[in-house]
C-alpha cells in the first residue's frame, strides 16, 4: 500500500497500522498514557530490583544485592527460627526421664515426630525405612528384643551401639564358632534340637541327641529353656523370630561360624535429645516393652 496515505477502517473509522494478515487489519488505537508510565515504572522497578537482590551473573558468582538476601540464608534463618521455637521442648527432651515420657503428651508427640526424622536419616540404611530390618539387622516392629525393649534400654543401645570398638560402653557378647569345637553330626543334632524347641518340623531322635549338647554348650547364654537373655544379647530360640533365619541351613551356619552383628554408637553424632527422640520413636513402633511393675 501507499505509505503516505492513511488506511481508514470502514467499520470503526479508525486508522490502521497498515499490517494485514489474510484480510484482517490491525487498528492503530493509541495506548493510554498511564499505561506508558506503568511500563516505565516496571523498568525502574526492575533496575532497582537487580541492585537490591542477587541478580547479575559474574565470573565466579552473581552480584549479591544491597539487601544481602539469599535463599540459603533464608533457609538458615527459618531453621534457626524453628529451633528457637522448639528450644524449650528440645531441652526438656534432652534431660527427660524416658520412663515417664509418655505422661507428657506434648513432649511425647514432639519426641516421636523428631525421632521419626532421625530414624529416616541415620537408622533406615540398616533397619529399613519402615524399621522392618533385614537378615542380620533386627526388625524393630516386633516384640522380640536382643538387648531389651524398654525405652531406656533402646536409648542405651542407640547411644552406645553393639559390639563396636569405639564406645567402651557398647553392648558386647560373642558366641563361639562351634565349628571348631563340635563334630559336624553334633551340630546337626543341635540344629534339630533348636528346631524342636521353636515348634518347627524336626527329627525327634536327632533332637534328643542334641538336648545334652545344648545343656552343655548353650544354656550359659541362651538359658535352660532356650529363652535367651537380653542382658547378653542372647536371642530367644523358642519364638518365631529369627535374625538370620530359622531354617536348617541358616541354623547350621550360625552354630558353625557364629554371628557378630555390629551397630555403631550414635552418642557423639546425635545429641541427647535426638537419642531420646529416636528411642521414643522406635519404642512406639509396636514392640516397645514397659518396665516390669513390682
Amino acid at each position, binding site marked *: 500500500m501507499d*505509505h*503516505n496515505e*492513511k488506511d481508514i477502517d470502514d467499520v470503526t473509522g479508525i*486508522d490502521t*497500522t*497498515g499490517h494485514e494478515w489474510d484480510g484482517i487489519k490491525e487498528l*492503530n488505537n*493509541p*495506548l*493510554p*498514557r*498511564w*499505561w*506508558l508510565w506503568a511500563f516505565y515504572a516496571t523498568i525502574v522497578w526492575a533496575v532497582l530490583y537487580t541492585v537490591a537482590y542477587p541478580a547479575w551473573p559474574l565470573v565466579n558468582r552473581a552480584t549479591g544485592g544491597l539487601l544481602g538476601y539469599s535463599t540459603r540464608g533464608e533457609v538458615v534463618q527459618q531453621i534457626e527460627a524453628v529451633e528457637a521455637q522448639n528450644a524449650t521442648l528440645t531441652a526438656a527432651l534432652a534431660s527427660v526421664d524416658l520412663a515417664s515420657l*509418655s505422661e507428657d*503428651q506434648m513432649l511425647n508427640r514432639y519426641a516421636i515426630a523428631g525421632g521419626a526424622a532421625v530414624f529416616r536419616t541415620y537408622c533406615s540404611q540398616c533397619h*529399613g*525405612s*519402615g524399621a*522392618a530390618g533385614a537378615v542380620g539387622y533386627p*526388625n524393630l*516392629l*516386633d*516384640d*522380640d528384643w536382643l538387648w531389651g525393649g524398654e525405652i531406656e534400654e533402646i536409648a542405651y543401645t542407640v547411644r552406645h551401639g553393639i559390639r563396636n570398638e569405639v564406645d567402651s560402653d557398647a553392648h558386647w557378647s560373642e558366641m563361639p564358632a562351634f565349628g571348631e569345637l563340635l563334630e559336624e553330626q553334633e551340630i546337626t543334632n543341635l540344629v534339630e534340637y533348636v528346631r524342636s524347641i521353636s*515348634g518347627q518340623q524336626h527329627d525327634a531322635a536327632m533332637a534328643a541327641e542334641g538336648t545334652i549338647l545344648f545343656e552343655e554348650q548353650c544354656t550359659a547364654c541362651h538359658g535352660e529353656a532356650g529363652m535367651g537373655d537380653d542382658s547378653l544379647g542372647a536371642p*530367644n530360640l523358642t*519364638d*518365631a*523370630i529369627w535374625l538370620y533365619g530359622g531354617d536348617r541351613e541358616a541354623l547350621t551356619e550360625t552354630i558353625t561360624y557364629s554371628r557378630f552383628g555390629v551397630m555403631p554408637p550414635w552418642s557423639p553424632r546425635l545429641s541427647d535429645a535426638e537419642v531420646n527422640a529416636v528411642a521414643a520413636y522406635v519404642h*512406639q513402633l*509396636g514392640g516397645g516393652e514397659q518396665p516390669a511393675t513390682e
Partner: protein
Amino acid sequence: MASQSSEPMYIAREPIFPRRVSGFFRTLKWWIMIVTLGIYYITPWIRWDRGPALPDQAVLVDLAGRRFYFFWIEIWPHEFYFVAGLLIMAGLGLFLFTSALGRVWCGYTCPQTVWVDLFILVERWIEGDRNARVRLWNADWDLRKWRLRLTKWIVWILIAVATGGAWVFYFADAPTLLVDLFTLNAHPVAYTTVAILTATTFVFGGLMREQVCNYMCPWPRIQAAMMDPETITVAYRDWRGEPRGKKHENTEGDCIDCMACVNVCPAGIDIRDGQQMECITCALCIDACDDIMDKIGKPRGLIDYLALSDEEAERAGAAPKPIWKHVLRPRVLLYTALWSLIGVGLVYALFVRSDIELTVEPVRNPTYVTLSDGSIRNVYNVRLRNKLGDDRQFRMMLSSDDILRINMEGEGAQTNQVTVPANESLIQRIYVTARPEDPAASRDRTDLRLWVEDVQNGDRAGRATTFNGVEQ
C-alpha cells in the same frame, strides 16, 4: 509509518463528568450499592458461637490455621473442593447472567462499578453536579479549587482506608484486629494489605474509573463471547430516534439530541452509536432518556433494555418477542443446568459429610510383622479429625469375617480409646493381629472394616481396608 499517522501513540484520559440522574435503574443501583457494601463491611463483625476452642467469627479465613469458617460450615484444607466448586459456580453464574441479560454484573454489582459510583457520589456532594465540575476542572488552581479537591481526596482516602481495612478483618478476629490496628500492634502483613488496598481503591475508584474496565479488565472482552442477538442489553431504538434533531428543527425521529444519555454516562460513551466495548450496561442512560421522553410527551423506551434481534424486528414493524423467549435459549438453559448441577452437588456433599472424619491408611512398609508367638500383625495409620470446639473421644473397633484382634499404641491402649483435641487432627497407630492358627494369618488378603465410635454420642463411621497375611 506511525509518524505519518495523525493519531498520537499515547493518549491521556479524557475526564468524564457524569451528571446526576434519577429513575428506576438509579434507585435500583443505590439499593444494590447499600446491600453489597453493607455485606462487605458488616460481615466480619457477625459473631457465631462454636465453642471455646474455635473462633466466634461467623465468616473467617484463618490462613495460618488453615481453616475456613462460614457460619455453621467449617472447611478444612482437604475439603477445598467446596471453595473450588463455589468459584466454578461463580464463573458459570457470570456466564448465565451475561448470556441472558448482558453485562449486568458490570453494570450493577462489580466492585469497581459500586466503588466508582460511591466515589462519584462523594465528588458530586463536594464539587457539585456535572456543570460545576466541568467549570472546576477548567478553573485555575486557586484556593477554592485546592480546598474542594483536597476535601474530596481526603474523603476518598477515608473510604479507601475503610475498604482496605475491612478486607483484613476477614482474615483475623475483627474486634481484636481493629484494636491492634489502631494501637500499632497488628502484624506488618495487615498494614501492608490495608495500604495496598487503600491505594488500589483510591486510584481505581477515584482516578482511573472506566480505564480499569477498558484496559485492565479482561471481562468486557470475554463477556462478548457470551452474548448473541437474543441477549437482552441496553440499546438505543435507532429506528425510532433517527433522524435526530432539536425539537424546533422538526426532524421526524424521537431523539432530540439533548445529550442527556451521554452526560450521565460514567463510561463517557454515546449509546446511540450502538453496542460498544466500553458500555457496562449500567442503564443510567435509560433513566436519563425516559425523563426527557416524559417531558416532551413521547413514549418511554427510546433507550431501553432490549435484544438486538428485537431492534431489527421492530424496525420492520413486527412486534418484539416476549422476554421469556429471549431468556429461554439453549445456552442459557445449559448454563443454568450446569450451575444447578454443581450447586446441588455441593449441597449434597455438604450434608452427607460425616460428622466423624477419618481416613485409614494401611502401612505397607512392611505389609506385615511376625510376632514372637508367630502371630501376624498389620499396622494402620488412622487419621481422625475433630472439627468441633470440644475434645472428642473415639473408640476403635473392627469387623471382619475372620478372627482378628485390634489394639493400639498410646494413652488409651487398654480401652482402644483415643482423645482428639478440639479443632485438631491426629494420627493413631492401630494394630490388627491374627494368631498363627487363624486363617487370616496365612492368607494374602482378608477384608476388614475399621470402625470409629464417638464414645459420647455413639455415632459411628467405618472404612474398608485389608489385612495381609503370609501367603503359604
